[in-house]
């Protein structure tokens, strides 16, 4: 029942449409007729003053007008009607189609000839004009699309614009299927209307055929014409990059060749866009690869250097002690043993930094946050670094009553240790290293200052980059890992770290940590409660 009904409405629609188009083609004739009537009335008024031949010329006017405005048919109609009306109303005997004077037949002949020639020429002119207009519009549309494509870097958005344009041109539904070479698949990337998809696997099979052969197929072509849509290859050179599926009204006319041309022009632009985006992606990937390659090289260099240097010191000292050739005095022996100990400690710190870096990089760093006392953290770090701080003078200024912070004690301790190690490394022998802390508003600032050569302003940001080493200090051993780890840890705590230099020479490394609302008041101990009882 339902199908019949819908068929019925379909037919109705068709009839209506045909009727509409018929009415459309009628209008020029009616208008031409009215013009002729108007000219006749004018002729009647002018008869007393005009010769017959002048009146005849008046009838060329509707021919010219209809030729320019509506084309050849209406203009011929105007010519024929003009002759008849002229004969009937003006040529004696008036109000009859009979002609007495043979000269008047000559006038008719001449009139018709002039009318036909003028009409034909005017029509041609009009067609030319139409074509030029259409071409201009096409160029404009192409230009607009190319502008949009150039402005978009996101392929999806480019193709969305593209399908909208195509849909606008053909007044139908459009689906864009882009070939993914990695998965050997056609992906429906864009469609107009946007939720549109291919109706079934048969349609998809036609799309694949087009992808493979790079030729049009489907409805209105000679290949696989049973398909509902017309499938259009989007090609660049010999490669089909995508397939365009176009669905028009089932009983509508096939697409005009100008429309097909326009679609092809659009497709070429789409192909350019696809290639451009693909190239950009490849370039991005290549850059990323190069970057990670660089990082790996830097990591390997740094690891081998930082593992081997203390190992070399240890091996050298141990083999000296083991060799039986020389007997060292007690002082030398102690110095060698100290070197071994120092090397081992340095190795340990380096391994710790490597582990921290891996944990930071892989995102498995879990903050074990607790209430921490900055003074306590600094104290533990100083105890840890006691040996290497020995030759330097140390100044610690931490005010009592500093608020507690919520932090991972061990990680902040690593930050302080790294900053101290850094200060020791770049400070002159017996130089002053000072550690201080202060609170401003809701932030606590911890500063580790050294008397080493000032880091140039332009390098201050970069010292926190992974494996970054100052140009001036390339010879000093170190990985360029320590500061980048500090940065990672501090940022994970919601703080900031930077370096400046209020006094030259010297550097001041500062990190900040947010101070949360302090914990509630402390309860009495069991003991105090007991005493109160």
């Amino acid at each position, binding site marked *: 029942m339902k199908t019949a009904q819908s068929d019925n409405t379909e037919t109705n629609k068709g009839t209506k449409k045909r009727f509409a188009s018929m009415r459309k083609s009628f209008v020029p004739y009616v208008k031409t007729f009215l013009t002729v009537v108007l000219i006749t009335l004018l002729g009647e008024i002018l008869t007393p003053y005009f010769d017959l031949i002048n009146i005849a010329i008046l009838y060329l006017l509707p021919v010219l007008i209809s030729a320019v405005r509506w084309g050849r048919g209406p203009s011929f109609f105007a010519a024929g009607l003009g002759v008849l009306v002229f004969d009937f109303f003006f040529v004696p005997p008036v109000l009859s189609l009979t002609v007495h004077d043979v000269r008047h037949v000559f006038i008719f002949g001449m009139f018709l000839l002039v009318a036909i020639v003028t009409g034909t020429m005017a029509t041609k002119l009009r067609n030319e004009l139409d074509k030029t207009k259409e071409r201009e519009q096409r160029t404009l549309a192409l230009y607009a699309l190319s502008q949009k494509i150039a402005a978009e870097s996101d392929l999806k958005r480019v193709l969305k614009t593209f399908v909208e344009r195509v849909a606008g041109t053909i007044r139908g539904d459009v689906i864009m299927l882009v070939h993914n070479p990695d998965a050997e698949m056609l992906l429906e990337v864009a469609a107009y209307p946007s939720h549109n998809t291919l109706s079934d696997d048969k349609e998809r099979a036609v799309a694949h055929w087009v992808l493979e052969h790079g030729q049009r197929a489907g409805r209105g072509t000679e290949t696989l014409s049973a398909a509902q849509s017309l499938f259009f290859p989007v090609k660049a050179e010999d490669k089909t990059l995508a397939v365009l599926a176009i669905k028009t009204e089932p009983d509508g006319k096939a697409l005009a060749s100008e429309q097909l041309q326009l679609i092809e022009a659009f497709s070429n632009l789409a192909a350019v866009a696809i290639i451009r985006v693909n190239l950009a992606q490849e370039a991005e990937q290549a850059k990323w690869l190069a970057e990670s390659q660089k990082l790996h090289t830097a990591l390997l260099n740094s690891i081998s250097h930082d593992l081997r240097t203390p190992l070399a010191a240890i091996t050298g000292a141990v083999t000296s002690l083991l060799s039986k050739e020389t007997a060292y005095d007690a002082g030398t022996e102690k110095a060698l043993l100290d070197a071994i100990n120092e090397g*081992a400690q340095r190795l*340990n710190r380096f391994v*710790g930094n490597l*582990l921290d870096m891996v944990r930071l990089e892989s995102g498995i760093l879990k903050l*074990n946050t*607790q*209430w*921490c*006392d900055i*003074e*306590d*953290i*600094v*104290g*533990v770090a*100083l*105890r840890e670094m006691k040996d290497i701080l020995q030759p330097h003078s140390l100044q*610690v200024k*931490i005010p*009592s009553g500093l608020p*507690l912070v919520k932090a991972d*004690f*061990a990680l902040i*301790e690593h930050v302080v240790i790294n900053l101290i190690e850094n200060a020791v490394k770049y400070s002159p022998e017996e130089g002053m290293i000072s550690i201080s802390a202060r609170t401003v508003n809701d932030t606590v600032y911890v500063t580790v200052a050294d008397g080493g050569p000032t880091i140039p302003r332009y390098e201050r940001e970069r010292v926190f980059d992974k494996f970054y080493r100052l140009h001036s200090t390339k010879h000093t051993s170190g990985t360029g890992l320590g500061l980048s780890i500090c940065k990672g840890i501090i940022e994970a705590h919601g703080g900031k770290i930077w370096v400046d230099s209020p006094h030259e020479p010297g550097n001041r490394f500062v990190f900040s940590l947010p101070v949360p609302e302090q*914990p509630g008041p*402390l*309860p*009495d*101990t*069991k*003991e*105090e409660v007991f*005493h109160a009882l």
Partner: protein
Amino acid sequence: MPSEGTRILVIDDEKQIRRMLKTALTGYGYDIAEAPSGQEGLNQTAIFHPDLIILDLGLPDLDGIEVIKRLREWAQTPIIVLSVREDEEDKIRALDAGADDYVTKPFSMGELLARLRVALRHMAKSEDEPVLVFGKLTVDMARRLVFLDGEEVKLTPTEYEILKYLALQAGRVVTHGQLLRAIWGPNYQEQTHYLRVYVGQLRRKIEADPSQPAIIVTESGVGYRLVDRA
């Protein structure tokens, strides 16, 4: 030598570490037995009757914590755990399971020997002494008084309780949880900020330089230790 004849069992799967410990500790007069796995360690404990056990937490067969738990079912032998830096939680779990102390790898022999001595002494100690002396610091538990260089130090009751608890465990690590449970009770064992505040206050009263404490040191992420100079 006081360590003469003291028996120590080393449970570690790394042969290099076992060899190093055996060489060094034998040199100090200890009597050493080795076990390369947790199971073997448990068996050896029953046969060798060690006075102290050095246990590596990373064993191939049994989890180190599991070894501690099984040992504690029937033996009170002091256990010193070998751990790595990153495992604060493991250290705490080991201490809560009944380990006496830990050293972090890589450790110095001096540090390990100090831990050994403290653990052995606590085991041997029979009666509580009323007055404890740590260098300049004296804690008189009978009179609840604390002296620094012979001068009385005024402590609040809470500060005193913390100092007393640490002093009784002198040389050994005390976890945050143990301290909080002992001073405030089991409901407060997560409230580490109490300790940060009170230990800070305490240090200001008894330490020469509170920013570089020499008496009550912090074991990062684990707890506190009162340094035993004896």
